[in-house]
């Protein structure tokens, strides 16, 4: 599937909210979806009520609802980030081995994950900085990365030092190999295809400018 790249140099980069809206709009209706801890969780706020999307949480639930408020808070009902949530009609609970069978067995349609780095061939690094004093913690990231049919990454394209996070080869420890299908960032979206990295849209920049700042060859539709 190749569509023309939409270049929008005259607007600003996407805000966090706009980025979440963008991803929500691209999730097919009726999908089973897992949203990673942190920023990806906000995608849920922008899914259309009639989208029929069913949210999976790794700790054993399908049909997860919004964050719990006030009297709704129940310590036995939390999401992967251990935030109290609600259940929707038709929700189901199950144990951890079943929950991860849903990932590994290819039953989840989409997952949205944050990333430290993504390579042009879809390798993902999002669990460990590799620094000597960092305590490693992987959670369900590796299982999700290789399990969902489509893995979307949600991140800023550049880190605080201005270094690109879409790279020819990840320098951080890997979470999964060749598993990312699409990268959503504040300044551009990318499809990672067998032919290479295709820029599908830009926000506040151009493909030319991105080519000068990234070490990954970019294709434009």
């Amino acid at each position, binding site marked *: 599937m190749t569509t023309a790249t939409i270049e929008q140099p005259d607007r600003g980069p996407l805000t966090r909210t706009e980025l979440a809206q963008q991803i929500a709009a691209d999730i097919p209706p009726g999908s089973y979806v897992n949203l990673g801890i942190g920023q990806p969780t906000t995608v849920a706020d922008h899914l259309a009520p009639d989208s029929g999307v069913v949210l999976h949480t790794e700790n054993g639930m399908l049909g997860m609802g919004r964050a719990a408020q006030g009297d709704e808070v129940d310590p036995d009902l939390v999401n992967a980030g251990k935030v109290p949530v609600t259940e929707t009609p038709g929700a189901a609970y199950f144990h951890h081995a079943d*929950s991860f069978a849903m990932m590994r067995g290819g039953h989840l349609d989409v997952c949205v994950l944050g990333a430290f780095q993504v390579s042009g061939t879809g390798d993902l690094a999002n669990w460990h900085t590799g620094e000597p004093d960092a*305590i490693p913690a992987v959670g369900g990231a590796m299982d999700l990365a290789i399990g969902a049919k489509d893995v979307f990454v949600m991140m800023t394209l550049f880190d605080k030092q201005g270094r690109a996070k879409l790279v020819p080869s990840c320098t951080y420890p*890997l979470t999964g190999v060749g598993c990312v299908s699409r990268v959503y960032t504040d300044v551009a979206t990318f499809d990672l295809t067998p032919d290479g990295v295709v820029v599908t849209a830009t926000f506040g920049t151009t493909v030319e400018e991105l080519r000068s700042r990234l070490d990954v060859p970019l294709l434009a539709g």
Partner: protein
Amino acid sequence: MTEIASDPDAALKGVADGATVLVGGFGTAGQPVELIDALIRTGARDLTVVSNNAGNGDHGLAALLAAGQVRKIVCSFPRQSDSWVFDALYRAGKIELEVVPQGNLAERIRAAGAGIGAFFCPTGVGTPLAEGKETRTIDGRDYVLEYPIRGDLALVKAHVADTRGNLLYRKTARNFGPVMATAATTTVVQVDRLVDAGAIDPEVVVTPGIFVDRVVVCPASTELAEEGAAG
């Protein structure tokens, strides 16, 4: 047969130093805090704990770590905003850590309970967590060989038990409970409520009593325990 213990201390008789203990819970949801407190009172040392996290705050699993009774923890996500007890022990070199991807943790425990010798799993291929492990390509996909994790003891929190040891759980507090219950030599379960055999609809039993050695009632401190037996 399942034994109904009079209190958490009676339920935890005979825990040996050096035991491997499977501890249910995802953060504090489903964490068997009263059983962990009783484990602390046994004074058993040199334990290996298998649990998704490495303790929250100062209670439950965190208190067991703080008591210096744990030599090694096997978990998927030790680092949390409130894991200061573990963080300090780890940075001081006083506890060993094995990080396991969460799905592998669940499946390795499941495999132990199901009598599976080992299994090939796609999770972690090409990552540091698969280094040194045997790999195989099956039908064009790469897999890593993973071995079962068996416990000497499993500590699980469920919602309701009947006198046969059949269990119901509550919402996402179920998490690792059903798989851990199958995978230990001795499985001890704390429940909010105990009912007579026959009071739980056989169609909705989550953990059959064959996997449960001892049950002890530890009423929940909140009104949540008022839910119906089939809820």
